[in-house]
């Protein structure tokens, strides 16, 4: 027996979930299918390396800043270019603001509806009618963060000033003042919504802890042992063990596997055997915390906490105006480089090889949703087994909890396929692959 949920709503992209049942009607396995394909790696091949950041950002309209930065970093490594210090400072400011806007978009528009007392079909309208204050402050915080991206990046969606070598033109003193203002109002708005949201997300997390615990490895960027969004080594952490790896060696541990049911490839943590590994806010928390939190529902809690932390860091980074020069000259050569950043959803890898005229010959991109996909399936398996017992299916509950589980990862299918989108359907199939039920 097999259950399919499709299309999945409130996720970026098109996807569906298929549950396969065993002979006795229990959930045997869950499959998370990504139904899109765009082929960005191939689109980037043959392009001049200095054009890559601006093309790569189009992989995703939500975490575009992260793609643009990872792309520029990979290209800079390949060409041996070091951007000036102030370019890095500007990139961090833009990156943090980008993460905040993505997190807020997810928390309010995509995730919060799962936590509301009434399950309104248009959460936006529900909030507009019932929680105007909350909606207003969230929108204010989001526009402040988008404003920051715009001032640094030239545009708030698909920013353009981030080049291979740094930032094209530094913000003027006047722009710097505008940035300060936006950063102040960002902190202010966030503080207003933080308390209430934290309580909402934490309560649910504790209430459902039992079903959402999933023991996996965690992976995030760390610099000198501290989590970092822009730079650092790969830090792996398991229940009892942890290890570190330079970014260039990511392929030694992340192995991509092709599966028949999806347009995304599945990566596994190798180190001897296949193990599940998770990235994103939960992983970022775990790698720099003494204890490990395995409750997947804490993704949203940490997502919220990151907003506050990053907003404060933006203020710190804005302590002085910017220097004249934020750009290092492009010098073309044959080379290979890996650029890794922490995107809103977790570790993002761009890996480029260029020829002597700086033309991209080979591109490999690993996005956080890809890394998380096997864990999403594991969690779906665990959660759904609560709601399918001996062929009795509680459709309403099932749909709700599976949706909640998928959305915890804020899966970005546009990214994951560099190619397509995520819209789940739940499809239930029996042990002989016969269709039992389709849930929309």
């Amino acid at each position, binding site marked *: 027996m097999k259950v399919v949920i499709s299309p999945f709503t*409130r996720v*970026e992209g098109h996807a569906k979930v298929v549950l396969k049942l065993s002979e006795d009607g229990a959930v045997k396995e869950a499959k998370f299918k990504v139904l899109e394909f765009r082929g960005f790696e191939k689109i980037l091949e043959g392009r001049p390396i200095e054009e890559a950041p601006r093309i790569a950002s*189009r992989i995703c309209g939500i975490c575009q800043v992260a793609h643009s930065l990872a792309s520029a970093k990979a290209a800079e490594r390949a060409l041996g270019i070091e951007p000036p210090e102030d370019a890095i400072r500007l990139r961090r400011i833009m990156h943090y603001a980008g993460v905040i806007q993505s997190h807020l978009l997810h928390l309010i528009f995509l995730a919060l509806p799962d936590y509301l007392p009434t399950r309104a079909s248009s959460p936006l309208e529900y909030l507009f009618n019932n929680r105007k204050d909350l909606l207003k402050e969230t929108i204010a915080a989001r526009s402040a963060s988008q404003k920051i991206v715009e001032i640094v990046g030239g545009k708030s969606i698909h920013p353009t000033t981030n080049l291979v070598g740094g930032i094209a033109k530094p913000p003027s003193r006047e722009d710097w003042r505008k940035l300060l203002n936006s950063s102040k109002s960002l902190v202010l708005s966030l503080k207003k919504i933080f308390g209430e949201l934290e309580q909402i997300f934490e309560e649910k997390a504790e209430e459902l802890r039992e079903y959402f615990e999933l023991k996996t490895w965690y992976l995030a960027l760390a610099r000198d042992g501290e989590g970092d969004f822009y730079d650092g080594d790969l830090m792996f952490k398991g229940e009892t063990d942890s290890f570190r790896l330079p970014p260039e060696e990511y392929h030694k541990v992340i192995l991509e596997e092709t599966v028949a049911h999806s*347009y995304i490839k599945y990566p596994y943590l190798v180190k001897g055997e296949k193990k599940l590994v998770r990235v994103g806010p939960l992983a970022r928390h775990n790698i720099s915390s003494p204890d490990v939190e395995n409750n997947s529902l804490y993704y949203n809690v940490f997502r919220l906490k990151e907003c506050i932390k990053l907003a404060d860091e933006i203020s710190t980074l804005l302590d002085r105006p910017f220097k004249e020069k934020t750009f290092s000259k492009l010098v*073309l050569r044959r080379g290979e480089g890996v650029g890794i950043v922490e995107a809103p959803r977790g570790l993002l890898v761009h890996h480029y090889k260029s020829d002597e005229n700086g033309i991209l010959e080979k591109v490999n991109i690993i996005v956080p949703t890809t890394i998380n996909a096997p864990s999403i399936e594991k969690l779906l398996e665990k959660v759904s087994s609560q709601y399918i017992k001996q062929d009795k299916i509680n459709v309403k509950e099932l749909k709700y909890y599976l949706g909640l589980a998928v959305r915890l990862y804020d899966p970005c299918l546009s990214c994951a396929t560099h190619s397509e989108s995520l819209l789940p359907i739940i499809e239930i199939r029996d042990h002989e692959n016969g269709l039992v039920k389709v849930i*929309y």
Partner: protein
Amino acid sequence: MIRLALVSLSGYCSGCEVALADVISEVLPRIEIVYSTLIADIDKLPSNIDLSLVSGAVRTKHDIEVLREARNKSKLLVALGSCASFGGIPGLANVYVVAELLREIYGTYPREVPKLTRAAAPVSEYVQVDYRLPGCPPPYKLLIELLVCVDEKKPLPKPPSRTVCDECSLKKRDVYEENVYRLGERDDVDFSRCFLEQGILCMGIATASGCEAQCPSRGVPCRGCRGPPAKIVDQGERLLSSIASVFSKIDEEELVRKIPDPLGYFYRFTLPSSTIPYTPEILKRMEKDEGSD
């Protein structure tokens, strides 16, 4: 109130939807979202849609079905963003045969997923489009303007016939550098002066206005995301022919070394709606497939 459907096709990145989210406080009183799988939980297209905003390029069989259904149920259907309008960046994959591409990427063509079309296409390839609002993403101002026009039942804005250069405030002297540089190769760029005159490729000359020359004013040249101005069909060809004229004193070999990627520079957003919208290899593969049936 506009009964609004947000139709996201599979070749999309969500940027256009985020653009709508960015202007939401200005438009929320005017719209009722009756369909959206991204920012709402409505996964069935209702009837009686006033306006369908379609984003993304058409890439799968499923996309075509959703698109046709949206067309049938909507009074107005607008292509939102460059992908829906012209095919966009995903359209650059049209130089590959998809089946071969999939085999290269995945080792096989995944079976349990929607079938892919042979080439990415703009929405107008399959249904009648009432209006195009291109841009990657579309400029906020124009998006608000469109929604206001629909809400107040005014005629839709005219597509721009002017170019980015017409709106650009960078100074022109009509003196061109006799050299062409790759982006970033010059570290003495004068940010108050026309990029093209300084030997840096800028696509403003054949790109529709409406963005207020946002990129050039922030120190980066235009890459043509708004597509061609009215009356021009093939933006890439216009760019190729005119940029070649500008740098015609450079010998052929050097020119191709400095402009190594005409496809990616000139057709970045519009290949699927250009004169030759895909590689003939696709046709050869198709003929082979048909022959084997």
